[in-house]
């Protein structure tokens, strides 16, 4: 808890920006030029949200401890993992 966690772009931060853009646009107090700028900022943040979802690694892996203490990862299928154990008693 002492050292700073790795700084990552947060989905919720971008979503908040989109919501803010919507809010100030809906407020109707901006000039046309400002409105368009807000709109573009909102769209940019929205695209970031989609990008984060898109870039997420959609993987399931099993970690394996190497002799030097590092962790290696291989694809993991829990169903397959269970099969040998289940088949043995048959």
């Amino acid at each position: 808890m002492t050292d700073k966690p790795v700084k990552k772009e947060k989905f919720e931060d971008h979503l908040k920006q989109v919501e803010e853009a919507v809010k100030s646009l809906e407020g109707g107090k901006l000039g046309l030029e400002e409105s368009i700028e807000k709109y573009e900022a909102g769209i940019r943040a929205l695209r970031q949200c989609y990008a984060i979802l898109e870039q997420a690694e959609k993987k399931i892996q099993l970690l394996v401890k190497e002799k030097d203490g590092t962790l290696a990862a291989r694809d993991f299928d829990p169903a397959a993992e269970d099969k040998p154990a289940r088949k043995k008693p048959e």
Partner: protein
Amino acid sequence: MGLSAEPLQPSERKILSVGELTRRIKKSIEETIRSVWVAGEISNFRPASSGHLYFTLKDEESQVPCVMWKGVSSRLRFRPEDGMEVIAYGKVDVYLPYGKYQLIVEEMEPRGVGALQLRFEQLKEKLQQEGLFDAARKRPLPFLPRKIALVTSPTGAAVQDMLRTLRTRCPAVHVVVYPVRVQGEGSAQEIAAAIGHLNLALPDLDVLIVGRGGGSIEDLWAFNEEVVARAIHASRIPVISAVGHETDTTIADFVADVRALTPTDAAVKAVPMLDDLLLALEDQGTKLKRALRTRADLARSGLDALARGHALGRIAELPMQFTQRLDELQERLAVGVGQASVYLRERLDLLASSLYGDLPRAPEAARQRVEHLTDLLRSHTRRAAETATARLREAAGMLEALSPVAILARGYSITRLESTNEILKTARQAKAGDRLVSRLGDGEVRSRVE
């Protein structure tokens, strides 16, 4: 069957010293009893500053003094107290100087079904006092984690439940499984080591789920061990505990940042529903575009008002100068509307193209929605320009109805003398032989007066 007892001869008397007697008793006891398990209630419990523990074990019939040396007492997994039912294992030892015997206790555990519960309560109290359960140190989970580690057994229902739930709710997350034994000797140490290892090796993890499926209190015991509690407490990565069923509560649950009732519940708590998220994004996108459209409509209606106020109003006032005015206005209005709509359209095209550039990755539905909205927005701009032009055309039509050209179109004509270009207003102006030019709605007719 005589009752008489012959007195022993002094020569036959076997006389023992007190020491000899005590030694014989000691020997006899040590040979016959050696190590035993004894069940009893603790009384007169006296911990010494040396670390040795002195107490008495008793039951309804009798009592036996006990001692537990420091080396043994430091390994005890509970705190002995007066009145506590225990099972003690040890050797009976006779203390020669006093001729007393005592039990040297080498192992001791609380007795009966309450034994584990007692250990649980005692550890819970201890850690609570240390502040390991403080609500203030509990961290919120990230809204959308990108990488999650499961510290659990790689086989069995729990890991499958978790993975299935994670996948169903939010496939856009990277899940790693750190395999550990979750019950039996050494499992607590393994779990604790895994938590520590993940903190060091994979600092980019957003959430740890530590848990296992249901089982007996003994099966779940690893999650009640101090070493696991300490590891969870030390974790920099937020931890969700997921042990057993709803009714099972472990020490791990108290220390964890978030307690899940079951492994499936842990997965539910760890990730949002991707579908909900996409709907929310779509909704925000729609609102964004709707708001901009409203703003653009506002700008256009301002433009229309300008056109009405400045142009059409005056046209009605100045019928005589219609042609020129109309030409002027038409030009001005065309430029005005044209500029505004061209400007807007350019911006929209730009937005649309930049949207199209990146949105194909978004789900098809969301993309279609955006396309639709963009089209809508464009047609609105175009329509506004068309409306303004149509209104102008209408106004122009009204004005033209009053113009001589329009009167000519209804069958009248204007006739001039070709020589002087004078308009013939009376028949007297024309003499025989004069050449005339008559202007009709769609052209001229030349003629000669006879």
